[in-house]
């Protein structure tokens, strides 16, 4: 759905965009660091609607003062954030990052480094990158565009982003600023609002069943008796997504209908 028809029903990708945007509701005046196309559209949507105080970057060293379409240059630059300042900003806590995950377990431990034995990985991926510093210092959410039992595993092969059980075991310095608000996937929205901080289904995207989610999850997921659906985008949100923020329909490349 790449046209500018704002009356067509919301697509799965558009539910994902709105679910990602919701991650930054009430975030206040902090840096939104979305990684991935759908989170990027979501952060821009949040800033254009209910979270106008968010700071956004151009993906490199500039803080942008307007909200351009994905891939377009900003018209306004409001600040400078080179990598060293970005890494320092993380430790101030005034940032909410949404990272990707090659593996994620039920306590929110995340892996983007490698699959298999670390000494001699079966599949080398990116490396830990900034996942350790992010997850211990500022709110860290995750985005998984294809929910599967290969991603949602009982135990990740390398803990890059720190989950609840690992943080608790490491003590107060690890838990002090540790916060994992949630996970958004192409099937639904998840959080860790359970007594043991294990992952819980928070909402299903319309058209998705609990069974589908259970089958695509490699661990026992907490599922409440009544599971709501992810909220619909408003007409204005659809217009912003389709006409202004992602007119080229890049969201559909990350999330198939």
């Amino acid at each position: 759905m790449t046209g500018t028809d704002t009356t067509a029903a919301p697509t799965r990708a558009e539910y994902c965009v709105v679910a990602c945007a919701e991650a930054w509701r009430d975030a206040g005046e902090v840096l939104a660091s979305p990684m991935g196309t759908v989170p990027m559209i979501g952060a821009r949507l949040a800033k254009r609607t209910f979270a106008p105080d968010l700071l956004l970057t151009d993906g490199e060293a500039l803080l942008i003062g307007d909200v351009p379409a994905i891939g377009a240059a900003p018209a306004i630059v409001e600040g400078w954030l080179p990598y060293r300042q970005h890494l320092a900003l993380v430790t101030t806590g005034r940032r909410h990052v949404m990272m990707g995950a090659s593996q994620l377990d039920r306590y929110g431990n995340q892996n983007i480094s490698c699959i298999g034995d670390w000494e001699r990985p079966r599949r080398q991926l990116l490396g830990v990158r900034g996942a350790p510093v992010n997850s211990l210092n500022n709110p860290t959410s995750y985005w998984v565009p294809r929910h599967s039992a290969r991603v949602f595993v009982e135990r990740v092969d390398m803990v890059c982003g720190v989950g609840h059980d690992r943080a608790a075991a490491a003590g107060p310095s690890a838990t002090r600023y540790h916060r994992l608000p949630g996970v958004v996937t192409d099937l639904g929205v998840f959080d860790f609002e359970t007594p043991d901080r294990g992952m819980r289904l928070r909402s299903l995207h319309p058209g998705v069943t609990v069974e589908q989610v259970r089958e695509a999850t490699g661990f026992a997921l907490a599922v409440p008796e009544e599971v709501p659906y992810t909220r619909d985008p408003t007409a204005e949100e659809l217009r912003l997504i389709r006409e202004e923020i992602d007119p080229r329909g890049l969201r559909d490349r990350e999330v198939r209908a």
Partner: protein
Amino acid sequence: MTAEEVVGRLRSGMTIGIGGWGSRRKPMALVRALLRSDVTDLTVVSYGGPDVGLLADAGRIRTLVTAFATLDSVPLEPHFVAARQRGAFELVELDEAMMMWGLTAAVHRLPFMPVRAGLASDVMTVNPSLRTVTSPYGDREELVAVPALRLDAALVHLNRADPHGNGQYLGPDPYFDDLFCEAAETAYVSCERIVDTSELLKDAGPQTLLLKRAFVDGVVEAPNGAHFTSCVPDYDRDEAFQRHYAEAARDPEAWREFTARFLSGDEDAYRAAVAAFHGEEA
């Protein structure tokens, strides 16, 4: 100096820091000169990009200290991936911020810096020599003591420098090139253009003067010396060439052809071969 003279001062077994970040403003001409030398058995400290890929593929790295290796527009660095999967080097895998604080500790001649990053993650598991340190104050916080990342040599690439080693970046991000140089015993900067000291601030503010000559031991004029990584505002990443590199790196036969075509001669030959490549692409 020439790139060959820089490499002539490096020794096998050294710990070498390489500036830039991912596929951005990497001292690629110096890396290519390193590939033409017989310097090997290196410990490389880098926010990894194709510098790491090329050196790993050539078997020059004994130990790699990094948080990632990427080509940015191509997420995975294929030579780094292949070298890791065949166990070609030892990896010291640190978080991005831990790298910055390790370099900072070296600059300040401190043994370590306390950081929160790393706690509870497998960075602590895969680096069993990492230790924690407890705050002597009332909070009694236990934090990671990131050891100083001291370097024997640093290699960085900037937009401009004067002949004395005052180095200037003109793009949006200095990356960590000053930390690399100040953390090193000896530091070498290649640049797009060597200019007279009096020219440095003609069109730019004083905050662009990233490197002080007291921390630079040699300057190399290397136009297009970051190619195929970006060197904004002088040039963007050569995406077409990088794609060609990444595709070739995934296939042994194609990589032999790539090496024969681009990496078997000197820097002039490299430039000519890249120009010919773009002629064919056009």
